[in-house]
């Protein structure tokens, strides 16, 4: 291999080799949330308004993006709005969304109390309903407990179907982690999975972020996932590294 070829191979490594691991219905571990998932999937056929609430790591973002993925696979336009990033967004981007078949509002509580946003969301709701489009929204609490300033918006969120997403139990988390690892072409032995569950924050978001880190590390070091290896990777945080020096 010539030097330039080698250079190219190295440069391409981080992008080319990783398997696609997007958020889909297939890789969502439904467990006790199976009914919510079934209703979401049905909403892609028959227009509906669905509100999902639950704590962190219950898969709210995952499900919304999975719905977008499924709609796009059918060639339907859709829109996903991460309202937690409202500072980078603008209520003006809600205009015209009634021309898409699916609108997903992730974490509606982020804009609660911001009257401009709330009013715009209220009107979007009405337009989507008139147009027969599907609206999926998420938040940390049921509509009645959201700190919304506009009662009109609250009552509309409660008008559709409201589901609480339940967190996974540890056994289910383990199975979920192994499933996601497999999808990435990575083998996560049960013992390693249990180690993660005993030493790391146990919400799925954090665990998946750790899995992502382990995946990269195992790829870079060309090592399989073992407890000693995981300890090295997770222990290599700046705080602990500094102590060694």
């Amino acid at each position, binding site marked *: 291999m010539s030097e330039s070829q080698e250079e190219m191979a190295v440069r391409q490594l981080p992008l080319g080799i990783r398997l696609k691991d997007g958020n889909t219905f297939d890789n969502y571990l439904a467990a006790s949330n199976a009914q919510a998932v079934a209703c979401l999937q049905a909403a892609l056929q028959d227009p509906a308004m669905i509100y999902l609430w639950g704590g962190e790591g219950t898969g709210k973002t995952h499900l919304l993006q999975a719905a*977008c993925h499924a709609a*796009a696979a059918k060639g339907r336009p859709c829109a996903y709005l991460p309202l937690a990033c409202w500072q980078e*967004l603008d209520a003006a*981007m809600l205009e015209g969304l009634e021309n898409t078949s699916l609108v997903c509002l992730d974490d509606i509580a982020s804009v609660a109390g911001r009257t401009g946003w709330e009013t715009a969301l209220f009107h979007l709701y*009405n337009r989507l309903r008139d147009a027969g489009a599907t609206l999926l929204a998420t938040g940390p609490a*049921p509509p009645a*407990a959201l700190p919304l300033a506009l009662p009109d918006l609250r009552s*509309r969120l*409660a008008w559709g179907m*409201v589901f609480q997403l339940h967190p996974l139990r540890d056994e289910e988390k383990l199975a979920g982690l192994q499933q996601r690892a497999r999808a990435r072409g990575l083998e996560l032995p049960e013992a390693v999975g249990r180690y993660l569950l005993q030493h790391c924050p146990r919400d799925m978001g954090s665990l998946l972020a750790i899995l992502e880190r382990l995946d990269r590390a195992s790829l870079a070091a060309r090592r399989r996932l073992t407890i000693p290896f995981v300890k090295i990777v997770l222990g290599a945080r700046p705080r602990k590294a500094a102590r060694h020096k």
Partner: protein
Amino acid sequence: MESALWRKCLDHLESELSAQQFNTWIRPLQAIEDNGTLRLLAPNRFVMEKVNERFFQHIAEITSRYKTCEDFRVCLEIGSNDAASPGGKNVGEYAPPRDASAPLATRASNVQAGVRNRFDTSFTRRSDRTDVQHVRNLCPDFTFETFVEGKSNQLAKAASVQVGENPGGAYNPLFIYGGVGLGKTHLMHAIGNLIVQRDPRARVVYIHSERFVGDMVKAFQHNAINEFKRYYRSVDSLLIDDIQFFAHKERSQEEFFHTFNTLLEGQSQVIMTCDRYPKEVGGLEERLKSRFGWGLTVSIDPPELETRVAILMSKAAQTQVDLPEDVAFFIAQRIRSNIRELEGTLRRVVANARFTGRPINLDLARDALKDLIALQDKLVTIDNIQKTVADYCKIRISDLKSKRRSRSVARPRQLAMALAKELTNHSLPEIGEAFGGRDHTTVLHACRKIKELRETDSRIKEDYANLLRMLTT
């Protein structure tokens, strides 16, 4: 028809961008490929500008790799491909305005995008015709037959029927006010439907205040204010919803004031709804407030229990759902705020029954309510768990964190640790830390011990269940 070229482009972008970026900015784009041009349609200006700024150059690069002819072009516009939107949705009078934006082609090599403002409002839709054509926007399901009457809305309904039978008569304007989700809009549509039923040629227009304001702003921008005025001043009945949205919009109030006067002078009917009594709406001109009270002002109050039950039974019958009366009572007793929430709960119960294949009963209703009401909105923290367990076992919180290992303290500590693992997402080392700096293996041991005891010791089983209930309800 899906563009194969765009599909390839999407594959590239999906692997390169974060899921959030891809879903937020790329997914809403619709693509039309024809004659060597890929037209990307953004739903609005904001999305178009962001895409142009952050991704368009890259999109142009990717597409140029797959281009089908030499002078292949990509352009970015505001608009939507009607065929691709859900079913065209132009169902009778419901037709919402469509985007009519002028495309602005952009060469892939010369990245820039522009757009002409969309201008298609309810009153310009058919402005090419000589006669002003009015779009009714009436919902056929909202009739007096489907309106459930009770003490809370009797007067409002009686007045509405009167107006429906004799528009432009004694009760003009009719002002209906009340909280959200109590049926104001339903009554308003019911009046409109009755008027049209009695006189199919009646020019009845229903519009939400916000839409009125939006249309007016666009009319000003496009020098079409005269068409706007002509449209609204030539109706027989104007139904205008949620007029509290006129607050602090002086220009719209001014225009509405004149429309209002013209209609009343011509004995056309005006019906308004609002979330409060006219005099209490802030940011509204005095002259408007006083005029709103010229006709009849009626209120709708939250429905009482019997009405709520009747509403549930009626909604269930409309959707051919067999709803036992005890379930209707159960829901109605707990959902008091408004009718939308009642409907939402019913929908949820029905979904639950369909999914599980079980008949509708109290258990199913309980499940649905759990999701709708914040039964578990109390934030479960380790502190909270320690306090609850300490109270329950009649020991001190400091005992839970102490080094003492006597049974009377160790067992509650183990219970609290197991609950912390069950109810929070804290890592085991964090939980150990919160209990006097214990090791995570101690937490693990506690969890195993409690699990084992719950199976063998009925008292522990009961304690655990009680604590779980106290913490989560």
